[in-house]
């Protein structure tokens, strides 16, 4: 998406509206992930080649199912996953949703994955000068095999896929289940990965 120009910058002269007194929700501020750092103290970068290699290590063979729209991503430190998980739980709670019970209704993991990706991106752009995208993606797959409390019923399901310093991690927010992609039992049934 590099060639695009900022049209918002043209609006910079407009006065900023006052922060609304009537808040949407008492939601916690957008969470800044901890990033894995290199020796120079900068976030470790992950480009397309490293993404593809990591996914291959995780058992993904068909890269036609991969959509990664940014050039460079910052690898996330697995230290911060419990904080990110808590953020998602608290935000859900603030809009009246019990995240642990949400799978009993119509559930779309893509919505929660996208929400966390957006929230961490907003925190990163507001609080850092890193020119790197946040590698929290959505993975859609056919769950042929049982994984923890999730049945192997052949249904389509969506999870978060997070590029961490330990590898690609599959995470299901309602059950809090997680696994490295290579160990996730349905990695051969992946239909789509979006970063």
């Amino acid at each position, binding site marked *: *998406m590099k060639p695009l120009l900022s049209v918002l910058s043209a609006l910079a002269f407009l006065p900023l509206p006052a922060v609304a007194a009537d808040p949407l929700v008492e939601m916690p501020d957008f969470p800044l992930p901890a990033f894995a750092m290199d020796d120079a103290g900068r976030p470790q970068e992950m480009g397309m080649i490293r993404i593809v290699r990591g996914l291959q290590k995780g058992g993904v063979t068909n890269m036609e199912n991969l959509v990664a729209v940014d050039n460079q991503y910052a690898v996330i430190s697995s230290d911060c996953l*419990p904080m990110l998980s808590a953020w998602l739980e608290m*935000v859900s709670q603030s809009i009246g949703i019990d995240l642990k019970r949400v799978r009993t209704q119509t559930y779309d993991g893509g919505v929660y994955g996208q929400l966390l990706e957006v929230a961490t991106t907003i925190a990163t*752009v507001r609080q850092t000068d890193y020119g790197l995208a946040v590698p929290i993606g959505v993975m859609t797959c056919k769950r042929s095999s049982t994984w923890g409390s999730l049945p192997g019923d052949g249904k389509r399901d969506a999870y978060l896929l997070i590029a961490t310093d330990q590898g690609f991690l599959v995470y299901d927010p309602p059950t809090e289940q997680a696994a490295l992609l290579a160990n996730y039992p349905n990695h051969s049934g992946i239909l789509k990965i979006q970063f």
Partner: protein
Amino acid sequence: MLVALVALSIAVRAEDEALSHITPDLTALSRLGKAPMSQPPPWVAGNKSGMWSIDDIAAEFGKVTDKPPRINFSHDAFVRPDHRWLLAYREWFQQMLKSLKLEYRDDVFDCDNFARTFVAFANMVALRSGETQGSLCVGWATVANDKAFGGVPGSTLGLHSLVVVGTSEGLFVIEPQTGKMASLRDYPNRDGFQDLNL
């Protein structure tokens, strides 16, 4: 490898290699402040605009282009917003961008981030209002934007991301950076869509 993961975070519990649990760390979260945001337009749960299946959405594209996008989805059917709600939400979104001072920055906050933010908050508003029928028929799409639209110049150097919404009045394209909107039929790059992510 899994042992290393657990060592890094005591809150990650491993039962076996294929299954760990990430326990939310509420203490770490308590150090965060609050995110002030204005009230979005109210969503009416149980929205009566109807649902669209993937086939319905594909058929709508088929009416105006011979080159429909690949549609990526995690659900089979999507709730169509009332068109008036979408217009109000679009205005709210522009205000929200300004209040959060979100501006374009390569990779970290560029066109796909604007589009995904539009989609994520739309679904959040519906969830907050108790919408249980499913996710909204609001997705982010990649498109070859040869022609200018919505304040974004045309370019042949790469793909662009924007928002596609199926409302009570049909399929619409929104440039989330500016709020400009057109029906799919009138969108100048309608033959250039690559992927629609719902």
